[in-house]
């Protein structure tokens, strides 16, 4: 039990951290948004493991169902005329 838990935790911890890193490192905002979803979902798994299923449910509903959709929406709205957003970090300052 303990080992399995630990392994699961480790696995999802890696997912969480990896996805989070992906969020901040991805060049494309789209990818970031998607990876954010992954990260948030894996966090929800941690909640379940920490015996907080309700919180986990809310995490899925609020974050994935609300926040992520909003962000996606915003990406769509702003992407067209945001030439710089793809070349984040290396963009040329006006």
């Amino acid at each position, binding site marked *: 039990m*303990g080992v399995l*838990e*630990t392994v699961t*935790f480790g696995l999802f*911890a890696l997912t*969480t*951290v990896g996805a*989070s*890193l992906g*969020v*901040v490192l991805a060049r494309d*905002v789209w990818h*970031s*948004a998607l990876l*954010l979803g992954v*990260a*948030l979902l894996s*966090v929800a798994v*941690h*909640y379940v*493991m*920490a*015996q*907080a299923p*309700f*919180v986990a449910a*809310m*995490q899925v509903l*609020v*974050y994935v169902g*609300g*926040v992520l959709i*909003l*962000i996606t*929406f*915003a*990406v769509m*709205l*702003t992407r067209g*005329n*945001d*030439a*710089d*957003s793809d070349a*984040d*970090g290396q*963009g040329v*300052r*006006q």
Partner: protein
Amino acid sequence: MVGVTHYLVLSAAVFAIGVFGILTRRNALLFLMSVELMLNAANINLVAFSLHYGNLSGQVFALFVMALAAAEVAIGLGIILVLDRNFGGIDVTVPTTMRR
């Protein structure tokens, strides 16, 4: 056995990644997403400690944080949209009309 410490490390890592994102990315949306990561890091702590102490206030607070994070995103997106409209983009380093 997964202890509080593990969660603490995890949350710290997520928090740090969020901070890293804020510091390195210029896209307003990514800024927002990084903040979400940081808030989630807080939530991981809260839930984990809630388990540790066996009281629910941590979980309850985590729920509030979620709700407020959502509200924050909503407001933030609104601002980002007007930013986009006024400055033709969502690069946070562009609006510097008030430097000095």
